[in-house]
């Protein structure tokens, strides 16, 4: 089934499922392959949410550790393996970000750590990079196309981990308005993605 965001040449959802089944069976080489596919995505997400290279590195490691330890629990969930891995990382990163609010941690300026910017992954070839860039362009374009006040609440929710109550407080809006902006923003984002050719997986019973 064509999943959301699947493009030719990418790690296919069916391939990921097979890898995860091998992880359940204790095959660490399968975990290594999942790492090679998704560590870059997870790391950039963790960097964006936590603002710290040290924390992002810990989040990447802990995410794949949990994939290793909890692979069997995925079997009962719906959706793609990649979404599951992302959700583990997102949860960890938001938790850590909330913890940081009470315990300020020096944020490393990324220019002090230039080695982090190198693409060290020997397993990716040019086509993977081109597809990753293309995917990033499509999604960024879709995000840029929705009204800024809707994009703002989505950003505060997803990348800062704020609740609707906290967003309402920060923007001085009623909670109902926040809910509406979330709804309209996600609907417009969905429509923009579909207009660019993304196919939403039909998970209905």
């Amino acid at each position: 089934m064509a999943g959301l965001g699947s493009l030719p040449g990418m790690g296919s959802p069916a391939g990921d499922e097979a890898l995860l089944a091998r992880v359940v069976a204790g095959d660490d080489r399968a975990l290594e392959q999942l790492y090679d596919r998704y560590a870059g995505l997870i790391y950039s997400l963790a960097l964006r949410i936590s603002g710290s290279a040290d924390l992002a590195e810990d989040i990447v490691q802990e995410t794949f550790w949990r994939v290793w330890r909890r692979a069997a629990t995925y079997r009962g969930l719906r959706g793609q393996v990649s979404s599951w891995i992302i959700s583990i990382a997102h949860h960890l990163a938001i938790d850590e970000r909330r913890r940081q609010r009470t315990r300020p941690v020096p944020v490393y300026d990324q220019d002090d750590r230039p080695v982090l910017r190198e693409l060290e992954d020997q397993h990716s070839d040019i086509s993977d990079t081109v597809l990753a860039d293309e995917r990033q362009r499509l999604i960024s374009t879709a995000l840029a196309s929705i009204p800024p006040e809707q994009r703002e609440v989505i950003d505060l929710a997803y990348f800062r981990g704020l609740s609707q109550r906290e967003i309402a407080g920060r923007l001085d809006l009623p909670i109902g308005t926040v809910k509406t902006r979330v709804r309209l923003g996600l609907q417009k984002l969905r429509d923009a993605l579909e207009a660019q050719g993304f196919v939403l997986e039909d998970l209905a019973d």
Partner: protein
Amino acid sequence: MSEHPTESLAAFALGVLDASEATIIAAHLRRCAGCRAEVEQFQQVVGLLPYSSPPQQPPAHIKQQLLARIRVMQPETVIPPAPRPQPWLRAALLLLLVVLVGLGAYAFRPIPDAAQPAVVAFLASPQTIGHPMQSSQPGVYGTMYLQHGQRRVVLVVQGLAPPVAGRVYQCWFAAQDRAVPLRTFTVDDSGTAELMIDIPQPVDSYHQVMVTIEQAGGSQTPGSQVVLSAPI
């Protein structure tokens, strides 16, 4: 309640509802396939948000640490039990056991002496200095990572053959008049080990570190087979 909470479905998918409201929506979703399908579509859209940033590869040692952490759980790399357990070895094994049990429930809180996340943080710290170690054996590499004035080091070795039956590798720190025995270890089938070691005195009070081959269970005085060494 027969009405559909359409205003809240997107917020539910984005995870911004408070717990009590989310519980109510979740209960409705269990009964309503239409709302469930809409939530799942929203969740797919939310799941694409991370792709809006360009991917950046993490440093290679993250993957090494992860795989080392996984392989230490597997039977081939368990430290062999000592035939005559000595107090410090028992303490080291107990520490390892506590760490392994703690890692299973690791909830991203700092755990005292948690090995692998602390190793990662230690290696990445700007205060950490790496001392390459010398070996008489070709293909064997070791680095001792330390911070001046501290009592914790990380040893990374590569290219070591697994010790023969009945033997282990052991670390030592040498001060003026004696060698301090520290933890024993073995290597995985790629010949790699990464260890965090706590030493009794700050690292600067020692003048040498070394790795030897000893009888299983470790020794109180170093034997003659020195595999790796470095001045401090």
